């Protein structure tokens, strides 16, 4: 079985998900993990599929991209299997006036502490920029990291909080 990483991005319109998923289903490509969301009027899909060869999927998606409104890429990836969590789950929230380099500076501080970002989203609303990242931290490092994040945030003129993620187990 081939594991494929597929991205589709383009101007949002009704039916993008249906069009792409239909092609994949017809080829017997099984959709596993994916995110599909609208980003400032562009619709972006990132998905992992298991099934046919990459070239076959690329050819089948080509007609969707023919009008120049959608861009699709397909590449074979090596299945890594499930990775165990690297540490304790935390949520970092950053907000402040938009400027260049907020994500770069804050995630560099996380990376230097051995933190692994598992999910991150950003929003620009007017002049307000918001970053929320879920990150796994090496055990016992959160307090010191919080201090370094606060320093980095002060340098950027933004606010940061780092809190333990609280999963609701029902």
């Amino acid at each position, binding site marked *: 079985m081939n594991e494929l990483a597929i991205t589709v991005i383009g101007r949002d319109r009704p039916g993008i998900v249906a069009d792409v998923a239909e092609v994949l289903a017809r080829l017997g490509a099984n959709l596993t993990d994916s995110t599909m969301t609208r980003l400032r009027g562009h619709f972006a899909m990132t998905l992992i599929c298991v099934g046919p060869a990459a070239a076959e999927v690329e050819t089948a998606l080509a007609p969707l991209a023919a009008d120049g409104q959608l861009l699709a890429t397909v590449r074979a990836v090596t299945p890594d299997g499930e990775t165990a969590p690297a540490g304790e789950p935390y949520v970092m929230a950053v907000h*402040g006036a938009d400027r260049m380099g907020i994500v770069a500076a804050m995630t560099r501080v996380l990376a230097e502490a051995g933190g692994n970002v598992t*999910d991150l989203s950003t929003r620009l*609303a007017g*002049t*307000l920029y918001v970053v*929320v990242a879920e990150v796994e931290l090496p055990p016992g490092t959160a307090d010191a990291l919080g201090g370094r994040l606060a320093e980095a945030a002060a340098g950027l003129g933004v606010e940061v*909080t780092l809190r333990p*993620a609280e999963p609701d187990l029902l």
Partner: protein
Amino acid sequence: MSGAPDVSNPDPQADAYVGLGDWAPETLGAGRVIPVVSAPDPVLSRPGEEVDPTADETVQLAADLIATMRVSPGCVGLAAPQVGVSAQLFAVDVTGHPKTVTGHGVFVLCNARVVEATRWKAGREGCMSVPDLTGDVKRASRLVVEGALPGSGETVRLVTDGFEARALQHEIDHCAGLLFLDRVAGAHAIYQRKVYL
């Protein structure tokens, strides 16, 4: 003072409750509508100063917060930092809101603090100072809050729940320089406020 505790009362909070009494917003006098500031205004991220609840300027600001809240559609609470004043003072009114369980009507608290917070629940919040976004935030759904009433300066200890508890925690956060953005549950817990054009 007799120091004997009332052991017959099984709920220690019940006799701790000190309600609004005969306090009414009319005692504050006329309020002015003040422009509401939006993030990333730095005043929203600064911890507010404690106020003297009996000072004239506190009473005036309390009246202004109520006046501004009343002209703002859907507004159930407004804190001093949201009108550009870095102070621990906020107005709340959840009357008539469909999510309200317990409600104390219109009131203003000075220097409020959370005494007890239990039964945490996630819920979607918005904010007049973050007009384009909403977010999922976990808040206590049962809350005991202590604060002073503007004018008399009398200390009250309110026990509340549900939506009013959420509103109070949101406003107390404002007074500490925090926005709901600082408490969102995760990377997918922030949403663009939906506007149908």
